[in-house]
């Protein structure tokens, strides 16, 4: 019993130590955001909540937050449709040619965005789709296909075959089977994928830095520009950072288990 107790204490001590290592930088950042001092040095007992309002106005976040939200919601919606089609076609219907086509799609998971970004930019420029929200959304949709199809295929394949056979005997066609039988059963996988997709699109910096400017800036890039301009006002910069991080953080707090299990599962299965 005694060693049991000692072990528990050592375990918790370690866990707490590591948690402090993670939280300390965040804590320093939050206290900088609430500091009335431009350099971000916290003043005990004084919380400058107005920093958030000032940062919101100075950085014109109302514009860029709407852009980010529009992009993330529409990209995720389109990604979901494609992922369900691909996942169902491969996972349940055993699409003709899948021996070749599925590995071809999987290959895309291993391709890093850097390998395609240069021609993609010059092609989109030719089509006048640079600095355009539809163009930027399309890129997210296209590059999201490999993981999405992989994810939904796994979800559909984890369903017992017998329910499809039963529906088939009842005379249900492939599409009816998808809408009435399969989709309701894979709702958890869809929710997890939607959350991860929202996070990835919202947090994207590289693509939006390249493709969007001016009024079309996403929140992450707007924050980067803001920090360049307000180098000497760290408290406002930190407040702006917290505003940009908030939407994903709120989702993470509500759906923490989905985020964690989704990211672990997504990584392990690849």
């Amino acid at each position, binding site marked *: 019993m005694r060693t049991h107790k000692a072990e*528990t204490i*050592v*375990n*918790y001590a*370690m*866990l707490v130590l590591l*948690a402090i290592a*993670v*939280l300390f*930088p965040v804590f*320093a*950042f939050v206290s900088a955001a609430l500091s009335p001092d431009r350099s971000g040095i916290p003043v005990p007992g004084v919380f400058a909540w107005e920093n958030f309002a000032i940062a919101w106005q100075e950085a014109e976040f109302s514009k860029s937050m709407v852009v980010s939200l529009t992009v993330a919601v529409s990209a995720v919606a389109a990604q979901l449709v*494609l*992922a369900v*089609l691909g996942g*169902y*076609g491969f996972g349940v*219907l055993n*699409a*003709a040619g899948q021996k070749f086509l599925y590995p071809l*799609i999987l290959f*895309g998971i291993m*391709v*890093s965005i*850097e*390998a*395609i*970004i*240069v*021609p*993609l*930019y*010059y*092609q989109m420029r030719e089509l006048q789709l640079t600095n355009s929200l539809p163009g930027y959304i399309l890129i997210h949709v*296209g*590059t999201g*296909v*490999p993981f999405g199809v992989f994810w939904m295929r796994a979800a559909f394949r984890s369903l017992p075959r017998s329910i499809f056979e039963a529906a088939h005997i009842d005379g249900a066609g*492939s599409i009816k089977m998808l809408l009435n039988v399969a989709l309701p059963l894979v709702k958890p996988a869809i929710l997890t994928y939607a959350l991860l997709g929202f*996070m990835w699109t919202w*947090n994207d*910096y*590289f693509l939006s830095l*390249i493709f969007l400017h001016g009024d079309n800036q996403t929140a*992450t890039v707007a*924050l*980067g520009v803001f*920090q360049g301009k307000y180098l000497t006002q*760290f408290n406002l910069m930190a407040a702006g*950072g*917290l505003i940009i991080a908030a939407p*994903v953080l709120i989702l*993470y707090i509500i759906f*923490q*288990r989905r985020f*964690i299990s989704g*990211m*672990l599962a997504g*990584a392990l299965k*690849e």
Partner: protein
Amino acid sequence: MRRSRWMGLAMVLVPLLFYAVFMLAPICQSFSYSFYKWDGHSAATWVGLDNYLSFVTDPVLASTLSHVLVLIGFFALLPIVLGLASAALITRRALPGMALFRFIYFLPQVLTSVVVALVFKRLYGPEGPINESLRAVGLGSWTKAWLGDFDWALPALGLIGTWVTFGFCMVLFISGVSSIPTELYEAARVDGAGPLREFFAVTLPGLRSQLAVALTLTITGALRTFDLVWVTTRGGPGTSTLTPAIALYRAAFENPQVGQAAAIGIVMALLCLLIAVAIGRIAERE
């Protein structure tokens, strides 16, 4: 059921179309761009393998690869060793409150990289907590602008990567350990194995697939670092924190040498692929 296979093909063709337009086609174009010298506007000229050879002939570009090696130490090796140590030391019994700790350790994974960069800009800043604490303990002469220092900027950036990835590795390993059959541990104990032998004989082999995943993700992450560097140092001071992705961005969009940029992208993708395949092979063989 035969008809449904054609129905299935019709369905998968929709995502395939998007994939082909936005990924497959650009990959092929990247290859062809990489053999040309092109400024993005005037006519392109064929230069053969020159754009690839500049990884050897151009010392600045070559230095990006050695920077990556340093970053791998911080992004991959350090967090994996830390993660393994904690997975080995933390009991296999379910601890109350573990969910809260998992929540905290995963936090850096969901924070957008721009905010992570700002968090550490604050930490490393001239009046940031690190320098303040150095002054407080009388080591004022050690204070510096960590991200603006030629020697310290790269390791300072690396530590940001450690902070981001270690929680992920740790949670991955702890969940992996809990799925190792208890009998293996009991057998090791019966054989008189100490904690160290138990770790090497049971825990480490049992975590093989998690290790492979962690190594692949963190090493390719180090190779592809862009956001963190762009927001904190832009590759500077000088070129001391230049990464391949930053070099690619500059070559593609700042003073266009489009062919060079495409070649950097191809080299990065091939290295990522090579790393993933090699680690996968090693993990399977053992």
